């Protein structure tokens, strides 16, 4: 058996690594570098009903150990994705997850309904955590009731499993996770970016035209690990973990914390081969650490802590 294999609702993954939404377009760019079939799954950019132009530039700014982005859900719209992007991906076997966004619950429902009919779409990632849009996005992700309502609505129209992507910009992420689980979510994706800002000393203004942006990259990993650790102990549904994965050991850390699979975002920008390189390194590292399978380490951390009380 393939030791790297992990199975999540709707997703039979030959390894636990997928690119994170928004960091991989619809796959075409990185397909120039390697065969996308190497990926455990492919998570594509957020799709909204209408075509969106996103925010004005500058849209990215580097920060110590991370970067801010304020793309603002730019995407070609549902119709175009149905007619061009998803058909292009048909030549790949890796399961596909489509990130779904909108202003109103009805928007989310429309995208989810149509997208989930497509035969090569294996799951939906409900984006209730985009910090860079005025309506929708994070507004749905910071209140447990609102998040649960939306989840329920989308579940009612989706033909594929629904993963809800949570925002870390909340006081109590466990409460929100539990609420969306009760509302029928098949899994969770966490975390989306932390809200941040950088000011350009030369102009005195925020560098991003949108002023604030979402912080991603190595620096946010401890926040992601903490949230996954806490949430995984209170929900039964699996978690796709992300936030600052750059090295093979980061993947293991996420899985020990409680993630069943992982997504790699910012690291793709630094190394276009980030995902396949991580996959290659993973098997080797399992040997070194003496683990038989990846699934056996999921949630290992809390299991150990509960067994023998930490010191």
């Amino acid at each position: 058996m393939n030791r790297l294999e992990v199975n999540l609702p709707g997703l039979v993954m030959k390894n636990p690594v997928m690119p994170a939404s928004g960091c991989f377009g619809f796959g075409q760019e990185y397909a120039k570098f390697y065969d996308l079939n190497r990926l455990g799954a492919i998570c594509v950019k957020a799709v909204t009903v209408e075509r969106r132009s996103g925010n004005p530039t500058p849209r990215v700014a580097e920060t110590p150990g991370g970067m801010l982005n304020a793309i603002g859900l730019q995407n070609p719209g549902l119709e175009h994705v149905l007619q061009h992007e998803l058909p292009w991906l048909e030549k790949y076997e890796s399961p596909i997850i489509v990130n779904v966004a909108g202003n109103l619950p009805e928007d989310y429902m429309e995208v989810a309904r149509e997208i989930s009919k497509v035969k090569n779409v294996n799951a939906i990632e409900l984006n209730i955590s985009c910090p860079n849009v005025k309506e929708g996005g994070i507004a749905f992700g910071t209140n447990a009731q609102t998040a649960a309502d939306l989840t329920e609505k989308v579940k009612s129209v989706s033909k594929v499993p629904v993963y809800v992507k949570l925002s870390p910009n909340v006081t109590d992420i466990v409460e929100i996770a539990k609420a969306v689980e009760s509302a029928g979510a098949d899994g969770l994706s966490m975390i989306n970016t932390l809200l941040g800002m950088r000011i350009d000393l030369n102009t005195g203004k925020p560098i991003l035209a949108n002023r604030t942006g979402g912080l991603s990259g190595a620096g946010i990993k401890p926040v992601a690990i903490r949230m996954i650790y806490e949430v995984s102990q209170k929900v039964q549904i699996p978690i796709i973990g992300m936030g600052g994965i750059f090295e093979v050991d980061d993947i293991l850390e996420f899985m020990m914390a409680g993630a069943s699979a992982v997504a790699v975002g910012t690291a793709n920008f630094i190394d276009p081969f980030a995902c396949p390189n991580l996959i290659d390194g993973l098997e080797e590292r399992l040997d070194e650490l003496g683990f038989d399978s990846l699934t056996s380490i999921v949630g290992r951390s809390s299991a150990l802590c509960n067994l023998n009380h930490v010191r």
Partner: protein
Amino acid sequence: MRLENMMITAQMEIAPKIFQVTLRGALAQTLETPGQFIHVQIEKSIDPMLRRPLSICDVDMDKQELTLIYRVEGKGTKRLSEKKLGEEVNVLGPLGEGFPIEEVKENDTCLLVGGGVGIPPLYYLAKQLVKKGANVITILGFRSEGDIFLESEFEQLGKVIITTEDGSKGTLGFVTDAIHDLTEEYSVYYTCGPKGMLRAVENSIVSPGYISLEERMGCGVGACLACVCDLAEANVETGKVYAKICSDGPVFKAGEVII
């Protein structure tokens, strides 16, 4: 498009804060058009973390060498300037669509207009144009006499007009002043420099032309949508209303995108 560790084989400060660096590696031979750029990982670290886009200034296919000219702006370019001969940087490239020169014919006259660190990509362009037998007129804008670089290199390829903002050398003022004064005819222009300059150049010239844009970048390969600009008209084929500077550009036809 390759990913390769390239070795620094030369590095020097050619004007205050302006450095010229030469990188050696097989990637150099894969350059397609003048005006393409490379995405440089200054060091494997999380600070600086992102790659830095830098234009290709010159290529020596035989020696497998690329030359870049860059200004020390922030952390990344500072670190690059501190690198010593023999050290390596990881390079992703060549990237983007450069200046199209297919339509230029022998004896055509081409106008090149560059400002500051927008000048470097024009140099390899000028060499290629001259190779095709075209005449090249170059207008180079600087702040002051001390900031001038590449002047003699361009002079070997054609007529060069220098403008300085303080008038310490050449024409006093901006490149657009030199454009107005120009008596020669030209069939096409190519320009690269700060946004304000590009706008002014585009408005000053009626001949067809090409402009090279800059924007803060994430991936450099078209995947993250950090670097978009608006198209003047939606693309009829794709319905797209925007272009990605990293992969659709950095060079666009004048008027094609909104600067």
